[in-house]
């Protein structure tokens, strides 16, 4: 049945887009609205992924765990753990200016990755954790994927609505004020470091949730999954391309990048064999080229940040400010 194959593939892509959309939404809170350059997405993704994996798997000798808790508990745990990890990091690093924050978060993500790879009692090190339950995982292939898509879509919709609500609220306006002109916001009596910390923790918790959804879909997690290439920089490309500061843009960016990435392989497979293998490298180049073109011709992204009644001041933001949204 050919059409069933298309359905399976489309559902699979939709699940991945949903999971990465959570990461992009989390980054949008941090970068798009608050101007925090978090280059350690993979770290929070990993914390969420492993927390949920440890909480929901049955006992295995030689590794902490055996809690065998229901999956939703694992997901909540993932958000809490990612938020808790973000708190001390934010406390220390958020006083740094944006580029220093980027360096610090890269370092933290790398520390988390090495801990995951080395501490066998906690994460089973390089071998990873297997036998992670997937909700409705006992159903047949297509039904199981559809059920999981429904869950991911539900979680994403809830996250999207909550984040949208948050940005429309006075809190969101305050965050934009802090992003665009930190001094002015401080002069208005806003507690800038504390508000930034809030945004950092919210965003990180969403990234943790994305990690948790990822492991339950794959039923396994190994350290390869938290490689900075696929878990940090890819998300950045998605957000910048889609439009930072716009939640719909973030989700659109994820969809566009993932679809182009995945579908381009189908196209290159039409080539004769000797070129088909070489063309796989071209796909990596394609993503970079796409980013370059977007930054050159449409720096605000596909869907730019909406400018409502409270227009952003055009001039002179001294603090962190997305370069993509200016000029």
């Amino acid at each position: 049945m050919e059409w069933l194959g298309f359905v399976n593939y489309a559902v699979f892509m939709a699940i991945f887009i949903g999971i990465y959309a959570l990461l992009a939404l989390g980054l949008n809170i941090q970068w798009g609205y608050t101007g925090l350059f978090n280059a350690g997405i993979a770290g929070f993704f990993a914390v969420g992924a492993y927390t949920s994996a440890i909480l929901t798997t049955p006992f295995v000798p030689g590794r902490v765990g055996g809690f065998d808790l229901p999956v939703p508990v694992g997901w909540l745990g993932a958000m809490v753990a990612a938020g808790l990890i973000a708190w001390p990091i934010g406390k220390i690093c958020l006083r740094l200016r944006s580029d220093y924050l980027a360096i610090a978060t890269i370092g933290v993500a790398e520390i988390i990755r090495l801990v995951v790879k080395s501490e066998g009692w906690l994460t089973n090190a390089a071998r990873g954790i297997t036998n992670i339950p997937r909700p409705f995982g006992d159903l047949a292939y297509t039904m199981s994927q559809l059920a999981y898509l429904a869950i991911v879509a539900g979680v994403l919709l809830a996250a999207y609505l909550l984040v949208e609500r948050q940005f429309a609220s006075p809190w969101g306006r305050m965050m934009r004020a802090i992003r665009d002109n930190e001094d002015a916001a401080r002069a208005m009596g806003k507690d800038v470091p504390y508000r930034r910390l809030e945004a950092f923790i919210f965003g990180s918790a969403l990234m943790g949730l994305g990690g948790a959804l990822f492991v339950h879909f794959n039923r396994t997690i190994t350290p390869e999954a938290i490689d900075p290439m696929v878990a940090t920089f890819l998300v950045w490309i998605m957000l910048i391309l889609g439009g930072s500061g716009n939640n719909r843009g973030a989700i659109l960016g994820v969809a566009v990048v993932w679809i182009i990435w995945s579908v381009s392989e189908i196209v290159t497979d039409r080539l004769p064999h000797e070129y088909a293998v070489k063309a796989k490298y071209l796909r990596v180049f394609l993503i970079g080229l796409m980013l370059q073109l977007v930054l050159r011709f449409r720096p605000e992204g596909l869907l730019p940040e909406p400018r409502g009644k409270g227009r952003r001041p055009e001039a002179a933001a001294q603090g962190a400010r997305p370069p993509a949204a200016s000029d």
Partner: protein
Amino acid sequence: MKTLRIAALAALLGATALAAPAHADVKIGLLGGISGPIAAMAPAMIDSANLAISQVNEAGGILDGRKLIGVVGDSACNPQNATDAATKAVNLEGVIAIVGPHCSGAVLAAANSVTIPAGVTIVTPSGTSPEITTLQDNDTVFRTVPSDDYQGRALARTLLERGTTKVAVAYLNNDYGKGLAEAFRAEFEEKGGEIAGFAAHEGERASYRSNLADLAAGGADTLVILDYGDGSGLTMLRQALENGFFENFVGGDGMKSDAPIRELGADNLTTFIASAPVGQQSDALEVFNKAFSDIGGDPNAIFVTTSYDATFMLALAIEKAGADKSKVSAALREISNGEGEPILPGEWAKAKELIAAGTAIDYRGAAGEHNFDEAGDVPGAYALFKVSGSTFEVIAEME
């Protein structure tokens, strides 16, 4: 939204283009880490798999003269790309079975989320993690490369037999190094050996002197390096030699590389030995080596024999089972269970006749006999090598 529409359109076009020829040919997926950390190794592995496919097609094709086609997918050595590539292979290309993915993490993810639910048999030529053994896979996950567990244990027993009872172990911190090291330690200590140092190291560092000093502090004069000989294993070996931290060096199959001989010189490597898998049937290995050299491949490249065997065996299994993916795994066990007429690499026409006549066949591969155990693993045969001139020479078979 425009871009999204264009992308969706491209997806549809791509999809319709490949829908048409699906019934004429028999497809198998070749998933490999073409981009990513093993990008240097993957092309040779894909080439050797394609050698098996072209042999099948030249000798009469598969089933009723149909063409066998290998669909190459990039699993990039990470779960994200591996599941994506496997989903495309299974659903869009309609492959009957898959060779790969190459890396263990990719195998676990692709098997768990795609191929086990879809009932597609996969044979990995290079996923060596012991975790693959314990997958609940409805007997659909196989491998032609032994689990690291086997090699680590065999190496430990061999060293003890040769009178080495106290060693320090340095291993690369990935699934390969760790799997080997833990199996080695378990067996070595159980059989009465002493581990005087046991430490992981990260790859691609400029200096391992502090790691080596820590390991040497345990008092062992033999260092077991479980790493790759063309990467950090070489650096470690060089620095241990330069500074005299240890006298004897033992490596796993990753260390049996030409790089140490080329870089350090055979004169300096008289105390270096390495274990590596060897083909049990040396005639099968020779047949493969010749065929692969003829198409310009390097038969000594890592995992080319296992890739070839995985592909050829899947072709045999499909020939036996018909183009029905649910029967492939059972047929895969039947064509290589140690009983029946022996089939060597490349003997497709002979195998095809025997299968048609209903005679039992037993494939003897370039990398070993591949009689799968209950978990779909192969035991593998190992030998201990020492450096001799510009190459390696067997000094002992390993039990």
